[in-house]
Structures are given as structure tokens and as C-alpha cells.
């Protein structure tokens, strides 16, 4: 009697492993999600490294009038392309390509005004819709520097200290680090790892319940000398087993991707060793059990596979919510976060990835909250399978 649920599990697994479509989806998710993660992080790293190392390109029109400015720009690593003349439309078109940060246009009367010590006009053309704003600020600072240098030189020629030009000294301190800027984004990304658990189980959860109803094989199964609890737990374990395999593969793939990427560039770290990774996967097993139980308890109420799919697509949003919303709120990690499945796994993974020592309680809460939820769902499903109302509907 004790092994009845294993009989059911074995059969459901055998069936699931022969379902090419479901396995295909599983494999796709295993590979797809880490790839999305890789792409997103790659992009972030790209942006953050580009800003520091890559040359800033601008076009200067009428360059021969300002040799000093050209020198200053060169010193500040700004690549200058000189042009004799450009129409407004040409400039707009050039800036729209987002290749050049801006166009510095020296007016024809510049030299005359400069010599006469009248304000000599320099036009700075830029496209504020581009993402090159920080680079533009550097060009501006070079221009301001040029302004001060010329002013200083003129004052000095009149015997006045250039220091009069600087009554105050402004020093900038930005307390935001790359890490704090990217933490929300990455938190949400890591949370998505666990949301996929619900996708891994979905097909099997539906096939073993709603599918069984649709195929009209449930009544016979219920008439076998097996308790509803054994039937449900058999189906539950088979479903969860697939989720565990899927999640383990996914986390492993993601682990190697994260290990290999230069995450320091965006102030993130992946200080997870292989044993820690296995610990993480072990901690996620209760989550898989919960996901499977939750979906079975839901899908069994659908009469057909299609109906179950519709139901699932809504239901799957539920566990996603905390994983998406909580990182957005930018809260500090608190103990209560470990009391909610999905959110707890996400928080735990983030803390571990940061290299924090989390202690035993978070692990315990993570495991227990999922197990409790799984137990409730299995209990409900067994009770439901037993009820007359349900039997009448099969």
C-alpha cells in the first residue's frame, strides 16, 4: 500500500518523458532563460564599460579658428572630426545616427569677436533623445574648461590672479554605486529563475489531472483500490520531479554563465561555489514541490487541457507577483521575505550571490514555507478528488 504512490509516480513520469512537446518546452526554458539573463547582463556591462573607455566622438566645424580648444579636447580623449561646413539638416541627420555625441560649430565671426574680447559664439548641437548624455556632459566640461582657461589667461595679462574667477570650488560626490543602481534589475532577474519552476511543472500538472479527465480515464483510475491521497501524491511527485530537474539544469547553466561574465563591471558579484549552488538547488526542491502541488490543485478543476491552460496562464502570475514587485520596492532584506515561496528563494539567492552569511533561519523558513504551502495544496487536491461533486464531474 505504501508504494502505491510510487506506482503512480513511475507511470506519470514515463508518460511525461514520452511527451516530446512538453520535454521540448522544458529544454527550451532551461536554455532560454539563462540566455535572456546573459543577454541582459551583457548589455548592461557593455553600456557601463563603454562609457569609461571608449572615445567620445564629436564633429567640429570651423576648427582652424580654435587650435587651443582642439588640443584640450584631444587631451580629454575626445575624438574630433573636423568639417568645413554643414547645413542644419546635415547636422540633424548626423546626430540622429547616435554615433557622434555632438557637433561643435564655431561661428565665422569667432576670431573677430575673440580678438575684440567680445563673447565669441560656439554652438553645441546635440540630440537629447540619444543615450549619449553623459558623454555630452564631458564635452560641455571641456568647453567650460576652455572658457576658464582663456579667461584666466586674459586676466593674467592684466595682472589679475585667475583665482578671482573661482570664488567657489564645487566638488561633486555621487553616492550611488553601480551596484545599487543595478540591484533592482538583477533582483528581478534572479527572481525569474524561480518563476520558471511554475512553467516546468505546468505541462505535467495539467496532463495528469485535466488531461486525465479529458481522456476519460479518471473514473477508472478512481475506481482502483488506491486512496485519493496516493493518486494525488503520485502525480504530485512526478510533476515536481520534472520541475526539480528543470530548475537544477537551469540554475547550473545560469551559474556557469554568471561565473564567466565580468559582473564586477556592473558592481554585481556571483560569489557562488558549486557546493553553494547545490545547496541553492536543494533549497528550491520544496519550491518545486509547492509549484507542482499548487498547479495540480488548480488544474484538476479544469475539465479539459485547454481549460487548464487558460486557468494556468492567469494562476502563474500569482507567484510571479512578489518576485517582480518586491525588488521594485527596493526594500532592505528582511526576515519576513523568507516566509513567502518564490520571494524567499529569490532573496536567498541574492544574499548568497552577494557573498553574505545568511544564517540558518532564512534557509529554514525558505524550505518550510514552501513545504507548508505544498502540503496544503496536496491536502486540498486529495480532499477534492475524494468529494462526490468532483466524482460526478469526471
Amino acid at each position: 500500500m505504501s508504494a502505491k504512490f510510487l506506482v503512480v509516480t513511475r507511470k506519470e513520469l514515463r508518460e511525461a518523458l514520452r511527451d516530446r512537446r512538453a520535454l521540448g518546452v522544458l529544454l527550451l526554458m532551461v536554455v532560454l532563460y539563462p540566455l535572456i539573463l546573459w543577454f541582459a547582463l551583457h548589455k548592461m556591462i557593455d553600456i557601463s564599460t563603454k562609457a569609461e573607455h571608449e572615445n567620445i566622438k564629436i564633429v567640429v566645424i570651423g576648427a582652424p579658428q580654435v587650435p587651443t580648444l582642439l588640443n584640450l579636447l584631444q587631451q580629454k580623449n575626445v575624438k574630433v572630426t573636423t568639417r568645413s561646413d554643414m547645413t542644419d539638416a546635415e547636422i540633424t541627420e548626423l546626430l540622429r545616427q547616435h554615433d557622434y555625441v555632438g557637433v561643435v560649430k564655431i561661428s565665422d565671426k569667432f576670431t573677430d569677436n575673440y580678438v575684440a574680447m567680445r563673447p565669441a559664439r560656439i554652438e553645441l548641437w546635440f540630440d537629447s533623445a540619444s543615450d549619449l548624455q553623459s558623454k555630452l556632459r564631458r564635452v560641455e566640461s571641456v568647453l567650460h574648461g576652455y572658457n576658464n582657461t582663456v579667461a584666466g589667461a586674459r586676466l593674467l595679462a592684466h595682472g589679475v590672479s585667475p583665482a578671482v574667477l573661482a570664488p567657489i570650488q564645487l566638488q561633486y560626490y555621487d553616492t550611488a554605486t553601480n551596484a545599487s543602481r543595478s540591484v533592482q534589475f538583477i533582483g528581478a532577474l534572479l527572481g525569474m529563475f524561480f518563476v520558471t519552476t511554475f512553467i516546468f511543472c505546468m505541462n505535467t500538472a495539467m496532463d495528469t489531472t485535466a488531461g486525465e479527465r479529458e481522456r476519460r480515464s479518471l473514473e477508472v483510475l478512481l475506481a482502483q483500490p488506491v486512496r485519493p491521497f496516493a493518486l494525488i501524491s503520485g502525480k504530485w511527485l512526478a510533476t515536481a520531479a520534472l520541475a526539480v530537474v528543470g530548475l537544477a539544469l537551469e540554475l547550473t547553466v545560469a551559474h556557469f554563465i554568471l561565473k564567466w561574465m565580468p559582473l564586477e563591471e556592473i558592481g554585481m558579484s556571483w560569489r557562488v561555489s558549486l557546493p553553494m549552488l547545490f545547496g541553492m538547488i536543494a533549497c528550491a526542491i520544496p519550491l518545486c514541490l509547492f509549484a507542482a502541488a499548487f498547479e495540480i490543485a488548480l488544474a484538476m478543476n479544469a475539465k479539459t487541457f485547454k481549460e487548464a491552460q487558460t486557468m494556468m496562464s492567469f494562476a502563474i502570475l500569482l507567484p510571479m507577483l512578489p518576485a517582480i514587485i518586491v525588488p521594485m520596492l527596493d526594500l532592505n532584506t528582511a526576515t519576513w521575505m523568507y516566509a513567502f515561496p518564490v520571494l524567499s528563494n529569490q532573496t536567498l539567492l541574492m544574499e548568497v550571490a552577494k557573498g553574505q552569511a545568511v544564517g540558518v533561519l532564512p534557509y529554514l523558513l525558505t524550505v518550510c514555507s514552501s513545504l507548508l504551502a505544498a502540503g496544503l495544496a496536496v491536502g486540498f487536491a486529495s480532499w477534492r478528488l475524494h468529494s462526490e461533486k468532483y466524482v460526478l464531474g469526471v
Partner: protein
Amino acid sequence: MIRVDSVRKQFGTVQALAGVSFSASDGKTTALLGPNGAGKTTLLRLLVGLLQRDHGSISIDGLDPASDPIQARKTIGFLTDQFGLYERLTTREHLIYFGELNDMGPQEIGQRICDVVALLAMDDIIDRRTKGFSQGQRVKVALARTLLHRPRHLLLDEPTRGLDVMSTRALRRTLATLREDGCCIIMATHVMQEVSHLCDDVIVIAKGQTVAQGSPAELCERTGIASLEDAFVSLVGSDEGISA
């Protein structure tokens, strides 16, 4: 031996069974006749303990399916009116699954599979996946799964539905063999020819109540009508049930 005594079952305001009593003895095939909606399926579900009766008693070799469904089900082979199969499993895997669910050991299962394959002439489909099986093949698989654990009691809901002549004959032979082995067979059916050919006893149910029980000949005698079909119509009280 199955005994049912004044069993009642109500779903909401609908009285599905309003006092059904009969007994089906071992070594006999008992037909369960009744118009659509007479409560046959409800009765069969009560017998396997899928539903709980409101009133009355049921005994399956002394076991009450309401209080001890697991033990009672072990002695029952239940063929529902739906022949749902798992299409990614082979026939053999189906049989192994249901054998294991009925606490059979691997050796016993192997032996019984040989038996039912021979009995139902299904060597050609035993190792095929059931996807795309014809109705006849599906019924065979369903029947094989019903018979596998040597149930003492067989509850069959329209077993010949969708079968061709050859398969119907094979099924009849099978049922005859089982009857000789001392099985207690209850068969819900609409085919009068089958009833007169196969059944020793007939129970007529109408509007949730047992209207009559007896051999086909007795029923004809009691109603004074020579044809069993006409006798049935007369017992049910109208032809409304047939057309419904």
C-alpha cells in the same frame, strides 16, 4: 455475491436512486436494464464506492464499499462507459500499471497478461502505444485492464458498445468463461439480444427504482409478453425512457 438493499441517492433535488434492491449471485451474469437516466451509472458508482449512498445497504461479499472502498474494489473489475487510455503508453504498460495498483506482483502480472492476451486475442496490440487505437481495440485494452487482477465481481457498463461482430463474440465467450469460473457479473446494457443470449438474471430499473428482477423468461412470463424488449417497455411503464 452482490447484495443491494433499498439504496437511495439524491443529488441536490434530483432523486437519482429511490430505493433499489436486488442481489446478483456468483456464477451468474446479471443484466442491468433501464432507460437512459434510470440511475444505472449512479448505481455502479455506488457499488465501487465512488459515491456515498444516502440510505440502504450494499454488500460485496460482505464488504461495504462505502466504509471499506479499498478492500471492496480489490474484488471488483469495473469497466466504465468511457474507455479512456493513456496514449503514450503501450497496452502492456497499461496492464502493468493497473496490475500494480491492484497490489499484484510482477510475476503475477506477467502471467495474467499472457492470460488476458490469449483470452481477448490481442497479441497484435499488446506492445503498441494506444494512440490511434480503434474503438474495438480500446475496448479490448479496457476490458483486459478490468480482468487483469481476477476480480470476483465484474461491473460492466455497456461493454459491447462500438465493438464489431468478431469482438462482440470474443467478449461473449470471455464472459461465459468468467461466469463458469464463478464470477459475479453485472452488465448494464441496452442490447436486448445480448440480455437474452448472455444473462441469467435481469434487473429492470426505472426512475431510480427496481421494477423487476428475474430471468428473461420469468420477465416475459410475468408481463405476459413474448418478446423481452416489449416486456421491458411494459415494465418501465412507457416508451418515454427509450426515446429520451
